[in-house]
């Protein structure tokens, strides 16, 4: 049962050109981040002789697999700055890209289930407010008012003791976001080349001068890596290491339902995140599999635990059927913050480590990474997210500090 009509797509989206012999810049990876980077390179920096190389089909990686939660209520100043900038861009992009991708600011709640959670959450609300990020603390009754299907009884294993709430947060239709960027990139002259796997790099000394691909060699002056999940595989080809570990992360959807879930509810403590898609599916995510993995599927027991938690929090889900489950590969760092900046190889730049939460960062990742590629130096917003922080100790430790989940 459909609850909302999806908008019509424009008549024309993008060309499918063959790769040219050379480009001013090559972006590896045609997910949201690669597309947004190319868009801002063309729009803000006038670089239009550029290509996006994607080994599979456009935005078929994590971009097609995420649970689409967008928010900016991170704890640390550096994170709040970049994610809030991203949220501001989300607010203007549908008009700028001339494409309705159903950005829905229905609010996000992060539940607290223990006294520790409560203290940490209130601290984050305070930090958010100081950083100009909209945030409120809700008691269980207010939680229930916003999301009536939530069970706020205190006799369950993880009772709801309150929640942080960011009203401007929400969800967007991820595929449409990718197509919106792709269409504008194409209009600006960017070549989007699918089925083109990067298999190696050509270097002159320590400077990258080209890429080897499954569709031939391409010369280029600059290379930007946007290959979530496979960042370290590419870095190894280029001769350097990244402090990244790849993990499987999965999500699932139910069959379609009438509108029952008006907002987005996340619980880090029991590891379940739920929203209702525009068409009516309940969309749920869980935690990553503990081990390193490149298989685009997740462990069954992770889903089992997530569903147990979901049914306790939302008793009416007990009769819902799971329609589909799937997995993606996310690249995680030790401090749970991304790496956006220079690499040890000259003229090669890295955007990676967004882990399980990079969809929301797509516009800001694109904007700041494009700045870094075009100018050879970081933007103020991505400066703290350099790889050097692991050496200097200036870590941005969002792990457990903030609402570190999608």
């Amino acid at each position: 049962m459909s609850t909302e009509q999806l908008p019509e797509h424009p008549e024309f989206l993008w060309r499918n050109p063959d790769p040219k012999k050379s480009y001013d810049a090559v972006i590896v990876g045609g997910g949201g981040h690669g597309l947004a980077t190319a868009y801002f390179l063309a729009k803000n920096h006038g670089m239009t002789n550029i290509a996006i190389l994607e080994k599979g089909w456009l935005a078929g990686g994590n971009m097609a697999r995420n649970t689409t939660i967008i928010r900016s209520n991170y704890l640390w100043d550096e994170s709040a700055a970049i994610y809030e900038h991203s949220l501001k861009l989300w607010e203007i992009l549908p008009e700028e890209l001339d494409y309705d991708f159903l950005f829905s600011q229905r609010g996000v709640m992060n539940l607290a289930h223990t006294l520790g959670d409560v203290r940490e959450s209130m601290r984050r609300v305070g930090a958010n407010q100081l950083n100009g990020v909209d945030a409120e603390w809700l008691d269980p009754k207010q939680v229930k008012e916003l999301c009536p299907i939530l069970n706020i009884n205190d006799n369950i294993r993880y009772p709801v003791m309150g929640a942080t709430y960011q009203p401007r947060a929400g969800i967007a239709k991820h595929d449409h976001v990718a197509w919106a960027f792709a269409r504008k990139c194409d209009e600006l002259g960017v070549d989007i080349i699918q089925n083109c796997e990067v298999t190696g790099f050509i270097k002159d000394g320590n400077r990258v001068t080209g890429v080897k691909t499954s569709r031939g060699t391409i010369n280029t002056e600059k290379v930007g890596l946007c290959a979530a999940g496979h960042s370290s595989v590419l870095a190894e080809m280029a001769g350097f290491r990244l402090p990244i570990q790849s993990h499987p992360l999965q999500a699932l959807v139910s069959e379609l339902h009438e509108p029952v879930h008006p907002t987005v509810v996340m619980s880090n403590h029991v590891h379940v995140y739920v929203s209702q898609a525009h068409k009516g599916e309940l969309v749920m995510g869980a935690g990553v599999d503990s081990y390193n993995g490149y298989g685009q599927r997740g462990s069954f027991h992770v889903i089992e635990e997530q569903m147990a938690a979901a049914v306790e929090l939302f008793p009416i889900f007990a009769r819902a059927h799971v329609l589909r489950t799937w997995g993606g590969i996310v690249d995680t760092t030790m401090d749970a913050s991304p790496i956006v900046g220079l690499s040890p190889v000259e003229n090669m730049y890295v955007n990676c480590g967004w882990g399980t939460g990079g969809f929301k960062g797509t516009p800001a990742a694109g904007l700041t990474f494009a700045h870094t590629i075009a100018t050879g130096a970081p933007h103020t917003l991505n400066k703290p997210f350099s790889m050097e922080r692991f050496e200097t100790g200036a870590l941005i430790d969002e792990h457990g500090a903030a609402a570190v989940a999608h």
Partner: protein
Amino acid sequence: MLLFSCPNCGPRNEGEFHYGGQAHVAYPTHPGDLSDREWAEYLFFRENTKGLFAERWVHSTGCRKWFNMVRDTVSYDIHAVYRMGEQPPTDLDPATTPANAPAQPLAPAQASNTSTSEGV
């Protein structure tokens, strides 16, 4: 769920174990001589092999002992299980010996890996 063969307890399901990341990461022999860069390498950089990977697990709800395992990070097939301080078996196909297998015996790894099941 995967089935692991604990060297002490035999086959048990994956849920009984916790992951410890890359195996055979030796504690620096002369910690005082390390540069910031070398400390960063030791603390934060681990192999992220696509293919055969030597890694550590602990049987948390069983014997509570650590052991090593060689697992394929693409197919998740388990190729070998061996005790701490031991080398990966040499009868693994040399072409598929894990990229991070040690060239010589190393002290048991001691850095605690911070990998968790938390989302980001």
